[in-house]
């Protein structure tokens, strides 16, 4: 974990307000698992004190480059979206525990379930699963066709099922409709999910007892390193059933299913 001014190699808009930023730096060599995040400092707004946690969407150890896909929604991410190639971004990372992928083996069925801006970290999961010879199935939910991104990238890795809230692409409605239809027919070896709380709750419910199913949480953070205790979630010990608060930033953001009170 370190602080670094990473060099911006490229910044492009994937969809309205959805940006993909390619960064290069030493930190990349520490990115050994998908699902971690970078804590990014808004570059020009000195009145914004807090860093923005942005998940890492892909990692390339050979070129020391990684990509972040984020939505420019608030003042900080809008500020980040103004940066262009050759400028730098002050980041802290890689932070948090990512998705365990080291036990994925050839021929296994791996599913990723993501909604909206929760989808990016699942791309690296899917990519690494494919590299390990797994069969990948992606379930992706978007608000509409306009804000859809990375469809082709996921299609290059396996089967993709898409829903849009407004019906402008794929199944009309939320992703749960597709999950209810397909999940009873398959037996995934591993499950990885990130997205809105209702989606995570659904995945958690379906795979509560699954030994290799994971959800990635989001919570407002301040420090990002476990010092301030701002971003806690309620968890229960599977054996003792005892409830305990855990910090999303450093004890998460990835948790096994059946553990977090979603």
């Amino acid at each position: 974990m370190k602080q670094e001014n990473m060099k911006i190699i490229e910044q492009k808009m994937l969809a309205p307000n959805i940006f993909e930023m390619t960064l290069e730096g030493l930190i990349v060599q520490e990115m050994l698992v998908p699902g971690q995040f970078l804590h990014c400092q808004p570059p020009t707004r000195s009145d914004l004190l807090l860093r923005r946690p942005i998940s890492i969407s892909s990692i390339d150890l050979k070129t020391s480059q990684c990509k972040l896909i984020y939505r420019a929604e608030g003042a900080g991410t809008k500020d980040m979206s103004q940066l262009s190639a050759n400028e730098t971004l002050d980041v802290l990372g890689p932070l948090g525990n990512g998705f365990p992928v080291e036990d994925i083996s050839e021929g296994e069925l791996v599913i990723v379930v993501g909604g909206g801006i929760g989808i990016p970290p699942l791309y690296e999961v899917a990519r690494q699963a494919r590299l390990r010879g797994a069969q990948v199935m992606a379930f992706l939910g978007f608000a509409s066709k306009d804000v859809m991104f990375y469809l082709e990238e996921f299609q290059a890795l396996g089967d993709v099922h898409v829903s849009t809230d407004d019906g402008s692409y794929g199944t009309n409605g939320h992703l749960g409709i597709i999950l209810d239809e397909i999940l009873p027919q398959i037996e995934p070896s591993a499950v990885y999910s990130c997205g809105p709380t209702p989606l995570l709750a659904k995945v958690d419910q379906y795979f509560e007892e699954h030994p290799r199913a994971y959800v990635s949480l989001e919570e407002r953070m301040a420090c990002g390193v476990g010092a301030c205790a701002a971003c806690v979630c309620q968890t229960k010990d599977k054996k003792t059933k005892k409830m305990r608060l855990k910090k999303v930033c450093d004890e998460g953001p990835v948790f096994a299913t059946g553990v977090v009170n979603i």
Partner: protein
Amino acid sequence: MNRLAVELPGLSLKNPIMPASGCFGFGAEYAKFYDISQLGAIMVKAATLEPRDGNPTPRVAETPSGMLNAIGLQNPGIEEIMSDKLPALERFDVPIIANVAGYTIDDYTSVCERISQAPNVKAIELNISCPNVKQGGITFGTDKDVAADLTYRVKQIANVPVYVKLSPNVTDIVPIAKEVEAAGADGLSMINTLLGMRIDLKTRQPILANQTGGLSGPAIKPVAIRMIKQVSEVVNIPIIGMGGVYTVDDVLEMYMAGASAVAVGTANFTDPLICPKLIEGLPQRMDELGIESLAKLIQEVKEAR
């Protein structure tokens, strides 16, 4: 001669920079970034008698040049802090200032009695000013008689010097500071956060689940400077200044207001290396301003009054 060294009750500081309570966990989190033995001291997260879960989330909200928090003193309780958190800091050559909070005076005295026995705890910071808990916290800090009574009681049992952390959420901080000094406080910490609120325009609801929270960051620095100046003119005990410190100039401004050491809070979240950067940057700025040593600066500020 170490130009940055400062002697305070219970604390021989190699430099005046210390992370403020609540902003540095129990130290280990930032030990991943740098050798925390460089620090003047560490004010660890508040300890209470029983473990506390704190408030519901969201617990933080951003404000212009500031931050609101409503953590609610989440901590594992005195037992785990004594058995686990404080011993983990013993390998670092840095004095610990233990922040203590409670619902009742007995809570405070029990925790102070225990925590002052930890070998690396060199002072207690009595938290009578947390704005984010319904019982205890700020209620002790807004009534001068209650604050004085608590200080007196804690002083009877604590084995280390006691610094009382004052609340800025009062009409006049001066009488409270005076009463606390008269009750035996060895020093003061000031200021804690200012009570504030933000509302989300889309949901029309307060952003913080707790509705209100404590405002920190550069936005509150002028308030801290004003209060430190007011109080330092009427008390004879040292003040650890805090509230929006981000730069070496902020550190020296706190000194010129009457502080004898400086704690850094929210800035740790923006820049995890802020404390060592301030320690490194201070001598050059002191040269530019003709400040020979911090000990001398404290003396000069006192004599000028």
